[in-house]
């Protein structure tokens, strides 16, 4: 288990999530792919916290936790994002009877 291997795994996960986000037509599937991308980023942050020395590690050992703190923030933002995203999906379904992205054209002029 090396840092490079971990980074490559999370890069693969991020690419899979990106593909799903771009190529799916169902809004819920797109949101699920977004979650995969969030998780890939979290994995990168924690892997870097484990292997890479942050600035000022010599002065204060607590700096080794910086990556984990960032991951906590990412998880919080992802939770807020998904709660709102699914609310929007439900509102969209209520108005158009569909969750197909290609039919979400109400804002188009």
């Amino acid at each position, binding site marked *: 288990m090396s840092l490079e291997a971990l980074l490559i795994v999370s890069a693969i996960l991020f690419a899979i999530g990106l593909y799903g986000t771009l190529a799916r037509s169902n809004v819920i599937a797109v949101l699920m792919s977004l979650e995969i991308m969030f998780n890939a980023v979290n994995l990168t942050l924690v892997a870097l916290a484990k292997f890479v020395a942050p600035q000022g590690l010599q002065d204060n*050992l*607590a700096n080794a936790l910086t990556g*984990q703190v960032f991951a906590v923030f990412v998880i919080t933002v992802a939770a807020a994002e998904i709660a709102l995203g699914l609310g929007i999906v439900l509102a969209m379904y209520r108005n158009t009877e569909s969750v197909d992205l290609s039919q979400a054209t109400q804002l188009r002029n």
Partner: protein
Amino acid sequence: MLFQDIVQDVVFWVLSVAAIGAALGVVLVRDLFRAVLLLAGVFIAMAGFFVLLSAEFLAVVQVLIYVGAISILFIFAIMLTRNVRQGNLPNRLQIPAVLFSTLLLAALVVVATSTEWNLIPDGAKTGVDLVQTQSVNVLSPEALEVLERAGALSDEERLQAEKAGLADLLIGPFVLPFEAVSVLLLAALIGGLALARPPGRA
């Protein structure tokens, strides 16, 4: 090679295969409900990664928030929108999407392998491991003893090590983003209520 290293490698490979396989399933399976179950698999594999990388607190948070809350929200959304049969159809952007994500993957892999990472020096490894595995609580006296044996710990360093916890960081150096995130959560709560309210009611 130590026995511990071999176990770590095996666990790493198992988790990698599980996470990547489940993620591929999420974007390729047609049945949305199965996709959500696979997504929960990705989340659990990710929690395993966090344990492997000595981030136990994050692993617990991952299981509670992602597996416990977000997967359930997805299942609710799928059930409420009633088109599970129609499923996970691809759109017309298939080929550009594959091209773009492959390009991004190639770029990320090149960056990850060609960068010279400023790795943690071997001397500091024990201390960093202790700080990370003990991130939830204040370092116990036993842990401090181990730290002292690993390298001479000055009084000032000892004081710092005693305060090296996630909570201390969150309400210390990171207090501003912490407060910003709480405002964001409040806004998301109000926004979710406003969105979910049936139309026509004041």
